[in-house]
């Protein structure tokens, strides 16, 4: 029983990482209907910015801040140079571009940073702050869950109560109508990329603290799984990404804990296919029929 509880705690902390990355996927998909494959690599950039900031002796909050700002800039630049010229191109072209950008970032990372994994500086003391029997919640896990929750609350407030947030929702509902209402589409799309990338950057630092090993290809699997999480929750729906992320984290830690860790990746995709077959629009999604 205590093992199960411990796995739930681990799953929740891992799930919060997935949720943070999934938010970026879901927001971008909601607004321009593009699977931004490069998003996982933005998260890698965040992890490396955090790594260099901490190695350079910056305090954790400042490193964390930096690891949100720089990936945000990456997101902005990528959107401007790679996706904006394809705004009206066939969707498959945009999808292939996204794959290309992702490959580009990964291999640039390998080239510049070397493919070897690096140990992430452990600046947090390795102690548990909540203990209940055999169940321990470490400081890192606690921070992961709390920071994720805080960022999600902020995001929800932003999307629901600011003018820009309102514009974002409008664009995701109907881009042309939003444009007719005087919304600057390009600005809103840029803002979406910036916010999504900043969240991914935050996830990068958190995962560095949790699993203290980072490498240029770390974004591939996390990115794919976070995308799966977004699909499970219902792509384009912000609470769906949060729920999907947590579910994904839980499923994965439970499989690792009770089956074998080598099956972990299969479970994520098995879950995806299951959800696609049962309810392709995701848990929170409403299905829409294509009309002629």
């Amino acid at each position, binding site marked *: 029983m205590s093992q199960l509880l411990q796995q739930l705690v681990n799953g929740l902390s891992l799930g919060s990482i997935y949720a943070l990355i999934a938010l970026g996927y879901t927001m971008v998909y909601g607004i321009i209907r593009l699977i931004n494959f490069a998003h996982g690599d933005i998260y890698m950039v965040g992890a490396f910015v955090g790594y260099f900031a901490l190695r350079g002796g910056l305090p954790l909050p400042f490193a964390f801040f930096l690891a949100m700002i720089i990936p945000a800039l990456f997101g902005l630049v990528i959107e401007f140079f790679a996706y904006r010229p394809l705004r009206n191109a066939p969707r498959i*072209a945009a999808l292939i571009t996204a794959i290309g950008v992702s490959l580009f970032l990964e291999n640039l990372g390998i080239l510049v940073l070397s493919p070897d994994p690096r140990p992430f500086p452990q600046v947090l003391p390795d102690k548990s702050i909540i203990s209940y029997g055999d169940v321990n919640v470490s400081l890192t896990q606690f921070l992961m869950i709390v920071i994720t929750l805080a960022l999600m609350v902020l995001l929800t407030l932003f999307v629901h109560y600011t003018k820009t947030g309102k514009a974002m929702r409008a664009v995701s509902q109907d881009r042309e109508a939003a444009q007719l209402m005087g919304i600057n589409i390009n600005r809103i799309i840029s803002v979406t990329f910036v916010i999504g990338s900043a969240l991914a950057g935050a996830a990068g630092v958190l995962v560095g603290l949790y699993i203290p090993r980072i490498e240029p290809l770390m974004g591939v699997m996390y990115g794919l799984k976070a995308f799966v999480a977004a699909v499970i929750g219902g792509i384009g729906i912000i609470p769906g990404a949060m729920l999907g992320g947590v579910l994904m984290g839980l499923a994965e830690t439970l499989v690792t804990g009770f089956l074998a860790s080598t099956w972990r990746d299969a479970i994520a995709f098995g879950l995806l296919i299951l959800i696609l077959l049962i309810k392709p629009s995701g848990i929170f999604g409403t299905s829409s029929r294509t009309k002629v």
Partner: protein
Amino acid sequence: METEKTTGLESHTQAQTAEKWRKYLLPVGLLLLFLLNILIFMEKFGFNFVNRYYKGILILTFINIILAVSLNLINGITGLFSIGHAGFMAVGAYVSALLSINMGEWGFLPPQIQSIIEFPLVLILGGLAAAFAGLLIGVPTLRLRGDYLAIATLGFGEIIRVVALNLGITRGARGIPGIPNHTNFWWAQFFAVITVVIIWNIVRSNHGRAMAAIREDEMAAEAMGVNITYYKVLSFTIGAFFAGLAGGLFAHYLSYIAPRSFDVLKTIEILLMVVLGGLGSITGSVIAAVVLTALPEVLRFLQAYRMVIYAGTLVLLMIFRPQGLFGRAEVDLTVFQALKSRAAEKTKSQPGERGGNGDSA
């Protein structure tokens, strides 16, 4: 998927120049292939013009042609965006490798005959296994559209890899060593040519037109009476079969396979060939497969930058020429028709040679 959004005038001149050199593409290509065959055949007489290294590249080129053309059938002709091709390749590779290793003497055939038919048989069984995997995966997922299909096929590709990583018979991450080294230039060329001919003919059959109709507009195709599910699954299964075949050739060429040979990057490599050549153009896929297999070898000094350049090229290609090198154009077969009709005219104008009854029969 729309291509060529150029103005009428531009596309006209473009088409004309393309027309001019496309005429020579097939004869020149066949001539080069013929010369290559002669060069390699000279080995039998003790002339080694092509060393092992170049032969290896040629074999990989043929394997990549099979992969690219088969993925093009799914992605370019039928318009299903699949990114799990390496998974099918893995199925074919593992099945044929395991069969080859564990296949003893059959007994009912003389060993000489067995050694000849064993390899193609094993490859085809590997292809069939991959086709079966494609069928299993295709039936449920092909209801999904566009992006969802892409991500589902990606998921399945990964699942196949993870299964290979976990099963006892596939020896996990250690992979399978000691696969008989059967793949040579001739087998690779034979299967590549067969693949191209078969897929070329499929595309130009009723089935191919139904697949293209699905690509253009699923609903309109359905309204016209095309059985969408059937043709989607058919395209997917055929594509998977040839991917499995290529996987078998790959396994028997390297004589070692491991799950990491069939990861997402492999799929993307194949996808890049298809996209560079032009989604929907078999000619394009073949040429892109040749170029993208040879290029890394030529650019060895750029090894570290190779993948960065690849990725950058893909992005630039999508921005500036999303239809790829060929769009949907194919080689010009009229050259042969012209030759044929010229030959026919010759016989007509010189009836004396054939006794005067040649063409009246």
